[in-house]
């Protein structure tokens, strides 16, 4: 039996991975980079946006289920299933977001270190769980890379930082000095991880898809690498080297192009995956 393309999960799962990752990345990076100073009205907006992205991703994922009304059952097998673990982590993170938003709306200005720590850890786990989830599907060789959780994590953190840079650009959070050196280094790290991930993928349909000359004309490698990594890297490098000046337009350009690339990376990960072939004849002859 020939290898068969993965068709079980489609664009709604991709969107869940993308939105959940971006939301978790935004929450985690905001709390680390600037939110520990204290809650204010702006914090309420940023934390709320992070929670909204995670919730939207979860709702999209639920709509992909055959029985969405039974989705509360999905916490049961947390001992071995990454889907159950992911569901629990997402719900816990949403609970923490609710606590933070309630505190901010009540005018409580300080976040206790315990809550901040839990939120950051939970965000990190939500950011990387799609990698573990895909990694544990043993039949799909393209996903069997130990780099995948790290890649998902880095993409999510960088998506969060890009959203934070957009918020900084719009609301003036005063984080540009911190973000300017982090962003190009982060994009370069993601590019290195993606290169290592693709280099390690030998023999699967995914590898053919990326390495075949025929794939050069296809839109996804162009969107993931060209628009999603090269363009933001150049934008952020310019900002780091030459400061703001007329470079204010480069922040949204870099952020939006990275976010588009981040979505298409996940999309290509699902689209180019395939189930391994089964053969008895070849096995008997070798």
């Amino acid at each position, binding site marked *: 039996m020939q290898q068969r393309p993965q068709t079980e999960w489609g664009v709604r799962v991709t969107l869940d991975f993308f939105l959940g990752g971006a939301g978790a990345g935004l929450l985690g990076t905001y709390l680390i980079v600037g939110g520990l100073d204290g809650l204010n009205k702006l914090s309420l907006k940023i934390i709320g946006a992070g929670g909204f992205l995670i919730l939207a991703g979860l709702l999209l994922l639920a709509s992909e289920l055959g029985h*969405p009304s039974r989705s509360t059952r999905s916490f049961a097998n947390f001992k071995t299933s990454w*889907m159950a673990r992911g569901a629990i982590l997402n719900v816990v993170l949403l609970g923490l977001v609710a606590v933070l938003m309630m505190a901010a709306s009540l005018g409580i200005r300080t976040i206790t270190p315990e809550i901040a720590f839990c939120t950051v850890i939970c965000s990190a786990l939500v950011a990387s769980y799609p990698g573990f989830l895909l990694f544990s599907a043993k039949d799909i060789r393209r996903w069997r890379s130990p780099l995948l959780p790290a890649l998902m994590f880095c993409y999510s953190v960088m998506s969060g930082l890009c959203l934070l840079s957009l918020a900084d650009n719009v609301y003036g959070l005063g984080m540009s000095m911190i973000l300017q050196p982090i962003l190009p280094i982060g994009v370069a790290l993601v590019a290195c991880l993606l290169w290592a991930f693709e280099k390690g993928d030998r023999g699967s349909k995914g590898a053919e898809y990326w390495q075949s000359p025929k794939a050069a004309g296809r839109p996804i490698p162009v969107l993931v690498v060209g628009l999603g990594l090269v363009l933001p890297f150049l934008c952020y490098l310019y900002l780091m080297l030459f400061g703001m000046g007329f470079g204010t337009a480069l922040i949204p350009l870099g952020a939006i192009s990275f976010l588009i690339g981040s979505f298409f990376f996940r999309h290509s990960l699902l689209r180019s995956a395939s189930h391994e072939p*089964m053969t*008895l004849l070849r096995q008997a002859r070798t």
Partner: protein
Amino acid sequence: MKYAMVIDLNQCVGCDACTVACKLGNDTGTDIRWGRVITEELGAFPDVKKLYVPILCMQCENAECLKVCPTKATYRDERGLVLIDYDKCIGCKYCMEACPYMARHFNEAKQPPQGVPVIGNGNLRKGIVEKCTFCEDRLSDGKPPRCVEACPYDARVFGDLEDPEADVTKLVQKEKPLVMKPDGGYNPSVYYTGVK
């Protein structure tokens, strides 16, 4: 108790009687076949070898579907069979991604082409994942699975591997049969003989 099936590929002619018996007996929905027969070819003319290979749930000892199911809808019963509790399944399809034998099917309740009648009530299981159960409803009555009974060439032998007198045990010991994807460590319970 460890149920197993040995399929002699020298005997299988690809008539699909097993597929039809399974489909009718288990009342599966449109486009869903728990058991099917695939054709495998190797080599180039004139040295071509062609085999008809029946594929079904391999009832793995080390089942990946059991591990990944978030709701515990996939479970192993007291007879060692990997089964699905249809009331617990949420239709997330994670087990389909993890199954190395592509033996699981999502019931989309597809309608047959125009003019073709809907047979049975398989589409009532809409939104869940289903698969071969070794006809567990018949095993308690001492009957073999429907595909075994329907095979006109007796290509399939079914029984308890822990029973030293069972035909299936003797065949496994004597023939040293092959299994699909032996490197994966899944320890499937469906064996194939007659592959040369």
